[in-house]
């Protein structure tokens, strides 16, 4: 525990400098984001008119498409599931991911996804303005990265 003013001043200066130090990451090429000292890189990302997102699509027996909530991959916080889905696709393991989701759907006691017979991991390119202004949620481009059959 801090007992003297000198120690308190030292700790204060050190912590302020360390908290401020990630600011340099804004101007270097090889960036590292850390915890709990961050430069908050999500605010400096370039945004364009389209956005690419890996996601899960389920098909019923009639070929109808349904959004599969990412919680069927893993019941963790949303952004964790999102990033891990992205990483599976990035690593070329979309089939593994689809198999995990298909297994979780098959064993889901709620029965909400009982009509789903097949799962696809899709890389979708969405037009942001169309998505919100015209409620057009069809991707401009959809590439199937992996798939799995729901075996019950």
């Amino acid at each position, binding site marked *: *525990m*801090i007992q003297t*003013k000198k120690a*308190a*001043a030292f*700790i*204060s200066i050190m*912590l*302020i400098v360390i*908290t*401020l130090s990630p*600011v340099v990451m*804004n*101007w270097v090429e090889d960036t590292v*984001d*850390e*915890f*709990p*000292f*961050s*430069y*908050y*890189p*999500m*605010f*400096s*990302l*370039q*945004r364009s008119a389209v*956005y690419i*997102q890996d*996601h*899960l699509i389920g098909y019923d027996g009639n070929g109808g498409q349904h*959004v599969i*909530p*990412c919680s069927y991959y*893993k*019941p*963790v*916080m*949303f*952004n*964790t*599931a999102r*990033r*891990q889905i*992205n*990483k*599976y696709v990035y*690593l070329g*393991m979309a089939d*593994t991911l689809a198999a995990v989701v298909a297994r979780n759907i098959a064993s889901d006691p709620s029965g909400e996804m009982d009509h789903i017979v097949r799962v696809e991991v899709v890389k*979708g390119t*969405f037009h*942001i303005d169309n*998505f*919100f*202004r015209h*409620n057009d*949620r069809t991707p401009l481009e959809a590439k199937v990265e992996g798939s799995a059959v729901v075996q019950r």
Partner: protein
Amino acid sequence: MKTIINRIHHFWFEEVPAERLAILRILSGLYAFWFLSRNVLYLHYIAQTDPVLFAPKAIIRLLPGPLHPDLFLGIVLFTLVLNVLFIIGWKYKITGIGFAFFLWWVLSYRNSWSMLYHIHHLMILFVGVVGIARSADALSMDAIWRVRKGKEKLPGKHWQYGWPIKLILSITLIAYFLAGVAKLAGPLGWGWMFTLREHVAIDTLRKVVLGSDKASTFFPKIYTQSWFFIVGGVGSFFLELLAPLVILNKKAGKGWAVLTFAMHWTIFILMGIRFPFQLSGIPFLTFFEPERWLSNLTAKRGQKKFLDA
């Protein structure tokens, strides 16, 4: 030069009541307990993730690989025990810094699975500073024990309770400043303030496409109201970039705290983006004198009891 140093010294080591720091200890501890206890299962699930997704952060880099999920669960539960001791202020010399360390460790482990959450940074720094300071000299088991034993009187105002608050306040302002600099240093530069809508749109789109129930239902309704997002973008930009300046004036600091707190609630209500620690208002309490609110409350209750009698 001496005058400036004296001013800084007077500002940084301002004598404040022990209760002010104690209130910050209790509230940040309660927040951490709320967060950890409701996420025990989530944390256990995350620890069961495919090891291929393990991307260690901070202190977790010292581990050779992921831990057994049950061992991690044990560490989370141990942290919760320390959390309770932190709140009640028992054996604080050990439990204060101990809890801060384990909370950092647990959240670092949680952030080591391909997703670094930026919502916990401020909380960890807050708890860390409270943990190393004399935050349990009042409103704690240690304080009750010392007074009962006749070892010490109730503490009064002291610099020991002032500097940690000033440090937390400074770190809070720096965090917002860094967010502002990141926007400015990005490819959009000053133009960022006119693209708030696009940033929120991407967050909402992700949630919709991935079937999250956290997607804002309100955002699509206000999407066409460009003026609203421009006002919000410009406002947040200046709140962030000007944050360090408000340290120079108490009233400006209070005003900044109220506006920033309101900004987080607006973002949450209209856009569905939540920063839970900021929404709790706890980081902004360092700009105020919460012990006065507490004494006013107890005085009013005492008065009511007296009148009732």
